[in-house]
């Protein structure tokens, strides 16, 4: 799980003056991780100490001069570097007060940016694509600068990456709709041009982010349609560089959900190998509002954390040492974040977390199915679902499931299910049960993929679907489990018996109830099971002894077969008792009593017929039953204490449990004796001397 912590304002963003509508030119790392250098477009450069939210130094250029690139800090010489009016490079120290008096040099070509990485010489990138180290440039400022790019090729984005003492400058250019990436390596100087190849129909990438991992540079770029592509470049160039344009292979690693509004801008920045922060794209569950900062997990395609950003978003995003810098509205906010190592459990929200705010978290599986080789593509199928009749839809879904390759199906199943559910919710006559069952059978669905499915089934009283879902979903929230339990308990048995259920579970219930009657006929215990006599009972009501034999416990099933089968499924779901308990309290008194009766029935059955093995695929275990009894008693303690109709039930249960406790106490003693026997056998004492044979292999 990634977390976005409470942010704070670092500084205000001045009124927008320039044409690009950007208040802040750039945020760069200062002299250490707690300092940042904010260059705003209104002629000033300010150094902030981030933890104090205070400026520690500020410089501005004279009226009429324009800062043309973000200032950077040269960690080697402890100097600040900025370029004004495209060609004047200014270098100053922390204690210089006036920028005008600082060192300046005019160079012979327009500078695009000065790029600086920690502990290395800053690099000057010219608009024409040429690259110089700052010190060599300042040594002879008027040195001729060669044109690397063609005339109408414009640099859109640039960055510097450093690893293993090696610098790499990356910049992307645009020329007549064609996008290229240049990779400039040093020592030896090589410039490699890559053509960014993506699917046709995509516009320009709107945001880039490069990180270095291992011996590769990972470049992430974001398109307006929400696709995030990743390209991997080797850190050290193997080719000589003079081979012309190389195609840059890329892979889709994330596709962000789009709202209805047309997006104009956005930004993404890589946080670690699995997480990416995105701004300017809508929150998947917050409607069209797009002023959200989100952290997405690219491995599992899940939204990990999000934060609403007040005010206008500038589509700018920087990340330094665990903090995100986001200009929005009239301020620059600092938002600390934390990305934990991603695991599937964490991505699905099933990892146990000590603190986790439920709101920030939403699970979404994205459906990336670039090429479905079935008759219908997912998109087509989804379109069909929106309009076609139930029968057609069911047939098409069946066809789709049969023909789609496994990998694609995994991604598509959720989407199809979502679409089916949303149609069913709006259209009362539309309920493709077969299609749902088929989708469930693929086992590619889980609760979080399609949360509405189970509640829809409940509404439609489709208990068969419920049963299958309970069997297949492993991530049903406790609230939903309880809602289902409630629905099952409140449905009359008569109605329930008409439902078509999984035969295996019904057979199990049949056997269970029959076993009861059979053992009754045979006159009780078969295996000599005899709970110790219930002394208090006997002493209290000796006259009752004959009528109320301790074994004549109420062994009739309190619910119908089908209801029982469904309850069994509920008993077998995964839950955490702390989350379940509050929801369990929602049950009404009669429901509680029926459920407890049923649990008691199961418990008695299991205890009595321990020798019988009913063959069934899924049966609730005795510990599951007892856990539920405990939960139910916890949740409705007062109700059970007060309600008169519960008295008999609780009394019986207590009596039986007490006898069991006694039995197990006796078993404990036996176990102790057996343990001693076992131990004594192990330490075979041979006295003082023995001749033995050992074998070594």
């Amino acid at each position, binding site marked *: 799980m990634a977390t976005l912590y409470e942010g704070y304002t670092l500084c205000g963003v001045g009124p927008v003056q320039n044409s690009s509508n950007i208040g802040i030119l750039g945020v760069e790392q200062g002299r250490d991780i707690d300092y940042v250098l904010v260059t705003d477009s209104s002629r000033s450069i300010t150094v902030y100490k981030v933890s104090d939210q205070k400026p520690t130094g500020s410089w501005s250029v004279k009226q009429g001069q324009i800062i043309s690139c973000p200032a950077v800090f040269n960690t080697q010489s402890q100097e600040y570097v900025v370029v004004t009016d495209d060609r004047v490079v200014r270098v100053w120290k922390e204690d210089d007060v006036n920028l005008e008096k600082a060192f300046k040099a005019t160079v012979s070509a327009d500078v695009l940016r000065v790029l600086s990485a920690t502990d290395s010489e800053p690099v000057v990138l010219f608009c024409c694509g040429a690259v110089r180290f700052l010190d060599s440039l300042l040594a002879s400022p008027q040195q001729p600068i060669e044109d690397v790019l063609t005339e109408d090729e414009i640099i859109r984005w640039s960055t510097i990456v450093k690893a293993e003492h090696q610098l790499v400058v990356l910049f992307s250019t645009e020329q007549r709709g064609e996008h290229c990436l240049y990779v400039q390596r040093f020592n030896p100087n090589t410039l490699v041009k890559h053509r960014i190849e993506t699917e046709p129909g995509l516009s320009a990438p709107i945001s880039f982010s490069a990180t270095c991992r291992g011996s590769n540079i990972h470049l992430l770029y974001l398109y307006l349609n929400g696709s995030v592509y990743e390209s991997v470049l080797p850190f050290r160039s193997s080719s000589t560089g003079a081979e012309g344009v190389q195609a840059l292979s890329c892979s889709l690693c994330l596709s962000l959900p789009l709202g209805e509004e047309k997006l104009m801008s956005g930004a993404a920045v890589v946080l670690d190998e699995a997480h990416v922060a995105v701004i300017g794209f809508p929150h998947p569950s917050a409607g069209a509002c797009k002023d959200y900062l989100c952290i997405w997990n690219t491995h599992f395609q899940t939204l990990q954390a999000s934060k609403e950003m007040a005010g206008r978003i500038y589509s700018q995003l920087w990340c330094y040492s665990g903090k995100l810098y986001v200009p929005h509205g009239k301020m620059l906010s600092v938002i600390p974040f934390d990305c934990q190592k991603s695991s599937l459990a964490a991505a699905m929200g099933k990892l146990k977390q000590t603190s986790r705010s439920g709101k920030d978290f939403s699970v979404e599986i994205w459906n990336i199915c670039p090429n479905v080789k079935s008759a219908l593509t997912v998109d087509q199928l989804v379109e069909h679902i929106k309009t076609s009749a139930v029968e057609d839809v069911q047939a098409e879904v069946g066809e789709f499931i049969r023909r789609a390759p496994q990998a694609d199906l995994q991604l598509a199943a959720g989407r199809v299910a979502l679409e089916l559910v949303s149609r069913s919710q709006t259209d009362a006559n539309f309920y493709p049960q077969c299609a749902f069952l088929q989708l469930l059978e693929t086992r590619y669905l889980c609760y979080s993929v399609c949360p509405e499915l189970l509640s829809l089934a409940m509404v439609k009283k489709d208990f068969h679907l419920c049963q299958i879902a309970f069997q297949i979903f492993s991530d049903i929230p406790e609230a939903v489990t309880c809602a289902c339990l409630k629905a099952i308990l409140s449905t009359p048995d008569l109605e329930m018996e008409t439902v078509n259920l999984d035969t295996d579970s019904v057979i199990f219930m049949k056997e269970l109830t029959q076993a009861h009657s059979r053992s009754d006929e045979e006159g009780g215990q078969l295996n000599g099971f005899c709970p110790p006599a219930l002394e208090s009972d006997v002493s209290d009501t000796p006259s009752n002894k004959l009528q109320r034999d301790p074994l004549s416990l109420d062994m009739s099933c309190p619910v119908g077969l089908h209801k029982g089968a469904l309850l069994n499924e509920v008993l077998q779901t995964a839950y955490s008792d702390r989350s379940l308990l509050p929801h369990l309290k929602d049950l009404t008194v009669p429901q509680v009593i029926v459920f407890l009766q049923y649990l008691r029935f199961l418990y008695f059955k299991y205890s009595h017929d321990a020798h019988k093995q009913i063959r069934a695929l899924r049966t609730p275990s005795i510990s599951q039953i007892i856990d539920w009894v405990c939960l139910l008693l916890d949740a409705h303690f007062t109700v059970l204490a007060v309600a008169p109709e519960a008295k008999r039930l609780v009394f019986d249960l207590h009596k039986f449990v007490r006898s069991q406790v006694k039995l197990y106490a006796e078993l404990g003693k036996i176990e102790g004796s057996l343990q001693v026997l076992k131990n004594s056998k192990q330490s075979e004492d041979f006295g003082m001397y023995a*001749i*033995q044979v050992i*074998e*070594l*292999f």
Partner: protein
Amino acid sequence: MQLFSSLWLWKLSCKGIIRTTTGQRHLKHTHTCFRKPQHKHLQRDQLQNSEDYWERRRRTIGLKEWDHARLSDPDWVCAGSAGLDAVGIWFRECTHDREEGTQSEDLRSAMGEFKVHRVRFFDYMPSGIRALAFNQDTERMAVARMDGSVEVFHCSDRFFQEKIIPGREQCGIEGLSWVGERLFSAGLNGGITEYDLTNQKVKYTIDAYGGPIWTITGNQQGTHLAVGCEDGTVKLFEVNEDQIQFERNLDRQKSRIISLSWHPSGSKIAAGMMDMIQVFNVETGHSIHRMLADRGAGTSRSKECVVWSVVYLSDGTIITGDSVGMVKLWDDQTGTLIKSHNVTKCDVLALSVSQNEDSLVAGTSEGIVVQFQFVSMVLEKDDKEWVRTRTFRNHTHDIRAVAEITTAVVSGGMDAQLVVRPLLDKIEVRSAASALRKIHFPHRRLVSCARKSGLMLFQYPGHLELWRLGESEGKGTPGSSLFVKRNPEKLLQLKVKGEDHIRCSAVSPCGGWIVYSTASTLRLYRLHCDNNNISITKISKLPKVLSSANQLCFSSDSSHLFSASAQSSVHIASLSQSGCKFVGTLKPKSGSHQAIHLLAASEDGKWLASANSDHEVHIYNLQTQKAHCTVPVYSSAVTAMGIHPATNCLFMMHADQQMFEYSIEQKQYTDWSRTVQRKGLHRFWVERDTPCLNVMFNPQNPSHVILHDMYMLCIIDQSLPLPDDKTQFYNQLTLKSLTEEQRKSQSHAFKVCKTFKDILCVELMPDQSLVVVERPLEDIATQLPAPIKQKKFAT
């Protein structure tokens, strides 16, 4: 062609079993071996011819040279990477002798099974620990035991017991103290003893004339020793270069001085007595403060409070541990009590403070060690306090001595085990060296074995016992016990004359000689054993040089006795019916004069190896009686060594569990040894915490080396691949469940048997049976005096 009638073609299989093969395609194996002709059938010139023949053969095959080194048996040659064709040539020339072949095969394939004599009648009782003294500079821990013996452990070499100075009757050491690298002890006999650590014996003892001495402690400056006497005096001794000299008494007190501690400056001394603590000014000898220790409440009020231990810190705090169970902190400026901690209901017997005075450990008679730490109560503030932090329960009986060393707490007491409890907050890297260590048994062999006659000699402090092993009948399946046809029999009990305890002893391989040495005398006995009549005669006129020995060893044919003596030298005496005659002395060319603790003679009587406590291993040629070579000195002590009977390679085990095999003839490490060092040993092997104490070889299978430590018995098959850290190390159970074929791929060189526990000694007898002498710790525990009775819950 008769020459080749016994020529055999063998294949070393992966399992370490040599089997005949039929010379088919799978002979294309890199370990194909040929047996050279039996030399005994040949005349000298024939031998010569045969050598020529072998040379011719080599050229015919196109082999560069015979790879003798690959096999330890000189009768074998290994055809290196001989190809199929070469093997083909050989095979046609071979004639088979099926019968002999199958016979050998049986013998060899039976290697996996051993008959084991499990011996538990050696009633070895370790003696309780009375005092500890840690030397920070040399990282040595001196341990004094109840029987008067003093041992020196090397703390940074896995607590190997480097030196043992045997005790004597009625010695009663009460205190130990290092002064620089010199070690002193004092005891209830009223004497102060200095030890000669080089030769591992008592250097001198002088009487303090103050009655029994309860405590001894040296100042940090190394100039003076203070002893606390029964007569109530604290006596100061000046430490001179070769002796100590009485200087003066401090003010005499009425009751005995139980404990002493110098202020680190050396100007003051705190003395623990009955019911009080006195602080003396060393300069004037007068008492500065007298602090009264409270007696216990209730019935124990009538009992005196004994201040068992005192520690004087440099900031003027005096810490005492007393018989009421309190650890009290006193201020030496005002002489007042600062704080007291009730640690136990019984006595606090020992205290020890760490070098930087931020941690204190207290040992109690309940067997618990309590740690106090000097920590600030409020974070980042400087007002520190002594706070009770941890409790260690590793002892069953009274803890008589504790010492805090750099990274661990060492404690010892009546239960005779030395416990090294690591302080995990002071350890940076977790390793085998940072594990809890309990030392129960000495790191020397107390058992020697007359292999040819099945006799065992057990060394007790004051006597020797000679036993004859029993005999079994019939065969048994692995894991079963055999019927004991004849019970083991105690043949002899030999009591030592005089008060000194035995330092070393040996029985000759033939069983005809017994020798032992104390610090002062060496005695040699001739043993006659006809059927049930045992008679023993003492050899009276021993050569003068054989007056005392640090280690004793017989040659394999029992014709010579080797006695390790002072200056790392070894005396040789020849033994015959007529008596014992001095033959010569072996001296190392150079190196230290530390006492020798291990001797190993080769089977052929040609070589002798000695190891001393400076980790030097010298090899002597017994024919020339000259030093042959010295094995490169390794950083860890040699714990066991042996010379291979066939190859004459010296196999050495070190305290850090590394193993080396050194070819005496070639004066270099063998290829196998280099491979082991290059590949590294398995993690589990290196992490074992007791040293290997014996190295044996199996004459039936030259590639087997048998080792043991306290917990296991291991056979190393040098022909099998070494395990790396990914392989399962303890794989005997796994192998057992596999089929013969699968085992080949799974097995590795280390075959560890953990069936036996608390092993004192393992020996391999000529009939391929093993003798395992066990001393179960439970048996020791039952013979210890009863611990303090404690109220346990629900008893």
